[in-house]
Structures are given as C-alpha cells and as structure tokens.
C-alpha cells in the first residue's frame, strides 16, 4: 500500500521543479511548459486526496477537470502571445523582450 505522503511529497517536488523551470528558462515557450508542470503537480495533489480521503464526493475530480480546461485555455492564449511577440521582436528570449511597445 502506497502511503498518501508519498504522493504529496512527489507532488511537492514536481511543483518545485516546475517553479525552477519557470524562473530559469530563457525561452518563453519553455516558461509555459514549466507552468504546465506546476498545474499538473497541483492536480496530482487533488486526486491523491480524493483517493485517500474520508469524503465520498467527487469534487476533487471536477476541480482537476476544470483545472485542465483552464490550463488548456491559458496555454492557447499564452502561445498565441508568444507567436505575436516573435513576429514583432524576431526572438522569444525573455531577456530581449523588454518593452511593451508594439
């Protein structure tokens, strides 16, 4: 039997890895990739508590479902922004995108 804390610690480590990637990567697309890793870690936490908990309702799965939908919408709009910025700046390097003009 796998203990609940194993899933929670795994989710915390995945969240920290995603946070490191979001703070460190220079390519704007890889920052969005790291944000997806963080959202997945939080969803894992939800489902772990749903499986091991005392409560019998289905709310955690619905939370995760809506979270996945929101993550998809955020990825779509974020990547559209990256494409539009690339068209103007010719670069997706977050250090070179320094002005809001355009």
């Amino acid at each position, binding site marked *: 039997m*796998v203990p609940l804390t194993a899933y929670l610690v795994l989710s915390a480590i995945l969240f920290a890895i995603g946070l*490191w990637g979001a703070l460190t990567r220079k390519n704007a697309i890889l920052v969005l990739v790291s944000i997806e890793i963080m959202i997945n870690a939080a969803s*894992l936490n939800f*489902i772990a508590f749903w499986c091991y908990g005392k409560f019998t309702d289905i709310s955690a799965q619905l939370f995760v479902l809506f979270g996945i939908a929101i993550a998809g919408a955020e990825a779509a709009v974020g990547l559209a922004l990256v494409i539009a910025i690339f068209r103007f700046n010719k670069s997706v390097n977050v250090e070179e995108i320094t002005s809001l003009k355009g």
Partner: protein
Amino acid sequence: MTLAQLGFLVVATLTLAGALAAVTLRNLTHAVLSLILFFFGVAGLFFLLRADFIGVVQILIYVGAIAVLIVFAIVLTRQRIGLEDFKQIGGAWWMGAFTAALVGGILIEIIRHSPEVAIFKVRSPVGSVQEIGQALMTDYVLPFEIISILLTAALIGAVVIAMEEIQNPRKEKR
C-alpha cells in the same frame, strides 16, 4: 515490496525524470518530448489513484492538444539556432534553484508535520464517470457553463492575437 508499490515507484520515477528533463534540457524539441513523457507519467499516477476518467482526460487534452500546440508554437517561432541556454545574468540560475528548493522544502516540511488522516478506500471504478456526469449537471452546472464561455473566449482571443495584421500597411514599415 508489493506490486502496487513497485508500480508507483516506476511511474513516479518516469514522471520525475520527464519533469527534470523538461526544465533542464537545452534542446527545445527534446524538452517538449520529455514534457510528453511527464504528462503520460502523471496520467499513470491518476490511474494508480483510481481516477480513470481524469487519467484519460489528461492524456487526451494534455498530450493530444496542449503538447501539439506547444510543438506548433515551436515551429512558428523558429530562431536561427534551435538551442537555448539557462539565464546567464548574475547569479539568476542559483537564485531560481534556491527559490524552488525553498518552496519545495517548506511544502515537504508541512507534509511531514501534518497528522496522518489518510484512509484508503477501495473505490469502485464503475460509478466514476456517472458520478462526474451527475455532478457536472447538478451541483457544478454553473462552473461548467462558465468554463465553456472561457474556452470560447480563449479560442477567439488566441486567433485574434496570433492573426497577421493585413489591413494596416503603415505598421510594417517599422
């Protein structure tokens, strides 16, 4: 070690390896492919936690749609060199790692010091999708409708943002 523990160890190792590779690799395409491995690993963990519907939704949406979207964005933002590097300004690499380690450490300390209230209940897999459907239509119908509006707005917004400007020729002379 039981089979369940062995399965959890294998899937968790794959997931961790995928996440570490996705935030570490210099090649952009390799990072996205390891992200796909990470998504499959998380779906495997959902199956181990008896959330079958969410596991399938994870594969369908994350691997089938979001990963493909990221690959398309990489194709559309091709720079001269396909490689990328860590931040090189000052000590930013170490500061990012320190912040992430701090957050992870605080979370793990909270997990270790919280009381053990976990009860593993054997959940029947048959009623899972039915329960989700019923909850979506009765208790959670308002978030359901709002999510559909949000997705429509995101769809239209993404198309509008990424569209080429063709009706204003003065902007292209910059």
